[in-house]
């Protein structure tokens, strides 16, 4: 099977500022990967490139062997850091929206998760707390049967109990041919569910390795290593 994602000398500049500098990276199937780096390191830029919201300045990014476009959007499920739903929307509107847009969307799976978190389908987004809105959005994204899930800061605004449920949701909803890319600062919360980590800094990949390897070789958690590598 083809590599799920590969970046070859991928570069993105905003004017004179280089956000990603000639990155080479591959992502295999069946992995949960943490994309970790300090603020302004290029995490969101990379995720936006994967989703075709930005075009590379130089280099190549391939998903299932194809450049980002309508075909790759069918297999990439994206949770942006900010919501794109209108606040007048009810949960049912969003469900309809996802059913219309994505043929791989599983409405029953989404409804089941909404019920588990006591979210009423008749509720409007405008009446929800920040955390609940995030939950709704994540449920939509994880209810697709995609190849690659890109989650940009998925657990920042939700309480620890819901965080656990969301992580369980991520673990249970992906399969061997899919991978999950999670960008976050909350490393210790997600560390136990990660296979691999990518450390990114100033547009460069500092380190790609597995969580087990870090623990075996360094004798410390990913969180501790992150604090050491990116000490201010």
């Amino acid at each position, binding site marked *: 099977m083809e590599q799920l994602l590969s970046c070859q000398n991928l570069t993105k500049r905003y004017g004179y500022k280089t956000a990603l500098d000639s990155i080479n990276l591959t992502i295999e199937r*069946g992995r949960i990967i943490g994309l970790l780096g300090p603020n302004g390191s290029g995490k969101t830029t990379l995720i936006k490139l994967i989703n075709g919201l930005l075009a590379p300045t130089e280099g190549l990014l391939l998903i299932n062997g194809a450049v980002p476009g309508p075909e790759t959007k069918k297999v990439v499920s994206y949770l942006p850091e900010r919501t794109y739903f209108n606040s007048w929307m009810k949960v049912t509107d969003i469900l309809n929206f996802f059913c219309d847009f994505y043929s791989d969307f599983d409405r029953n799976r989404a409804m089941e998760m909404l019920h588990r978190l006591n979210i009423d389908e008749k509720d409007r987004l405008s009446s929800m707390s920040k955390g609940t809105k995030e939950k709704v959005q994540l449920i939509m994204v994880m209810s697709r049967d995609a190849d690659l899930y890109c989650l940009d800061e998925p657990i920042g605004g939700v309480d620890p109990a819901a965080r656990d449920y969301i992580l369980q949701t991520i673990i249970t909803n992906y399969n061997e041919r899919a991978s999950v890319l999670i960008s976050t600062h909350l490393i210790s919360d997600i560390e136990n569910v*990660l296979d691999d980590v990518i450390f990114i800094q100033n547009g460069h990949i500092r380190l790609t390795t597995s969580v*087990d390897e870090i*623990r075996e070789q360094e*004798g410390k958690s990913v969180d501790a290593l992150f604090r050491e590598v990116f000490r201010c």
Partner: protein
Amino acid sequence: MAWILDDSRPIYLQIVDVIKTNIIAGAYQPGDKLPSVRDLAMEASVNPNTMQKALTELERSGLVYTQRTSGRFITEDTAKMTEIKEQLAKEQIQLFLKNMEQLGFKKEDIKRLLDQELKGGK
């Protein structure tokens, strides 16, 4: 059984220890079927790949065996169980002795204190 995982060791090794302890302590009986990888992963809140790795390790130690198509089972080999039980006990004792040495106790003192404790305090 709580899945308390610490920060310093690979997660799959810690899972191996938890399941080992469960087997030794009798929470799982010989011949019992283990839950599926996915269910165990959910229970421990870890990634299925990590759980898979832990189970492979347990298979290698002989405590768990796989029957094709029907799943994973706890070994019925009681000699194997005893062997692993004693090995775990040995590890605990060595740890204890090391800690006592660090406190500056000699072997005779350790023995005397241990005897005293086993007899029920002072």
